[in-house]
């Protein structure tokens, strides 16, 4: 489609043109020319009607399969769906295999479903800055339902729980899950637990274990636990009901959450920029230390001076 001005992209988005959205995503993700006007437009437009669901959990647990099953239900309810499917970038090569959409292939021909595969490209840990910016565009485009899929490895769940209206954490039946959970602080970010692959033995046991772990939380904070078999579309209605009821409750303390989200957004955008700047300065100083010009101690204080610390 060639280079397209932000004004034109905004016009395309306003008219519901997917290609416009798709190109705008590349522009904001890569901070190409025109990304700021696009983001300002998207932020100001907002997305009052959209509901953003985060789906996270360990690799291979069935996140994409569940997303696909949810899409099917939401489409039957005539809701449009936008998916941001995040897969990890290799820290060694910067490349990524973005495989989630293969599991959602049945929706490929549906004009009411838009799926974008995103590489995590993380530099600070957590959801990429790109993902956060893309979410603004999705809201401006006006999807009824937005689904963000990320692999849960530490920081990601926490980020996703700030960006999304609600977060579902997927687990597979088997021992050890409950340990992982209490360690990673997943309990605090999950609005909803889903034990997928419940066709497997131990599904029930894992459910009980999980529920007993959750008893340590105050009753009103205990998230529901739902068993699903995503590839057979079993348990999906229960997930949708839980999402609706959590969302209803959520609206009540919506302002505090919104404030938290905006804070996090400003913080992470600044941290991202600072990190870039610091990395460049460190590279320069490293060369100077290696050439015998200064000591690492000098180098560090010079960088701090540069940033007025």
């Amino acid at each position, binding site marked *: *489609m*060639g280079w397209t001005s932000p004004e034109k992209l905004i016009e395309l988005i306003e008219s519901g043109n*997917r*290609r416009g959205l*798709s*190109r705008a*995503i*590349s522009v904001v993700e*890569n901070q*190409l020319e025109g990304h700021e006007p696009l983001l300002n437009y998207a932020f100001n437009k907002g997305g009052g009607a959209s509901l953003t669901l985060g789906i996270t959990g360990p690799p291979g647990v069935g996140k994409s399969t569940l997303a696909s099953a949810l899409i099917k239900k939401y489409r039957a309810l005539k809701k449009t769906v936008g998916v941001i499917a995040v897969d990890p970038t*290799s820290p060694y*090569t*910067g*490349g*990524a*295999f*973005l*495989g989630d*959409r*293969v599991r959602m*292939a049945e929706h*490929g*021909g549906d004009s009411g479903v*838009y*799926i*974008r*595969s995103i*590489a995590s*490209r993380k530099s600070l840990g957590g959801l990429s800055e790109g993902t956060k910016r893309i979410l603004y565009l999705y809201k401006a485009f006006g999807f009824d339902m937005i689904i963000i899929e990320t692999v849960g490895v530490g920081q990601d769940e926490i980020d996703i729980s700030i960006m999304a209206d609600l977060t579902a954490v997927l687990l597979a039946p088997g021992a050890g899950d409950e340990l992982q959970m209490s360690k990673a602080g997943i309990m605090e970010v999950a609005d909803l637990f889903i034990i997928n692959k419940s066709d497997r033995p131990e599904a029930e046991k894992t459910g009980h274990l999980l529920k007993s772990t959750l008893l340590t939380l105050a009753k009103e904070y205990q998230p529901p636990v739902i068993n699903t078999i995503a590839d057979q579309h079993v348990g999906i209605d229960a997930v949708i009901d839980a999402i609706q009821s959590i969302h209803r409750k959520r609206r009540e303390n919506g302002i505090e959450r919104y404030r938290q989200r905006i804070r996090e957004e400003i913080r992470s955008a600044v941290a991202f920029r600072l990190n870039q700047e610091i990395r460049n300065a460190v590279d320069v100083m490293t060369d100077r230390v290696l050439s015998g010009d200064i000591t690492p101690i000098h180098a560090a204080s010079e960088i701090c001076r540069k940033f007025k610390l």
Partner: protein
Amino acid sequence: MNENKPIRVLIAKIGCDIHERGPITLMTAFRDAGMEVIYTGRYATPERVVQTAMDEDVDIIALSDHTGSMPIIAESVMAELKKNDEMDIHVMAGGLILPSDIPALENMGVKGNYGPGTPLETIIKYTKSLVHPV
């Protein structure tokens, strides 16, 4: 185009070709070369491939086929791209490509046209040069 933007490739398999080894090897090679790789899965249609390429805003569609029908596949993909006015998405082809088919493919604007046994480095280098001409 921004040099820092990773190259995005869609690997597409159209029709009833069940061989997945070729595309999987290629996916790994592209990823290890720093690209972002998306796969259509098997049994995609030309319309679906082009729609996916547009939704994912890829730079390149890499067609993989081991049934010997690349000219037919490529022709339908090129027609679909033209219909959508997306001629600046590059199309490459690889797999079981008959030498006698290559001139026709090149004529359509399909690039690469790599037969079995082509070294991966050759493919990677050419792919990069398509997006970032030197």
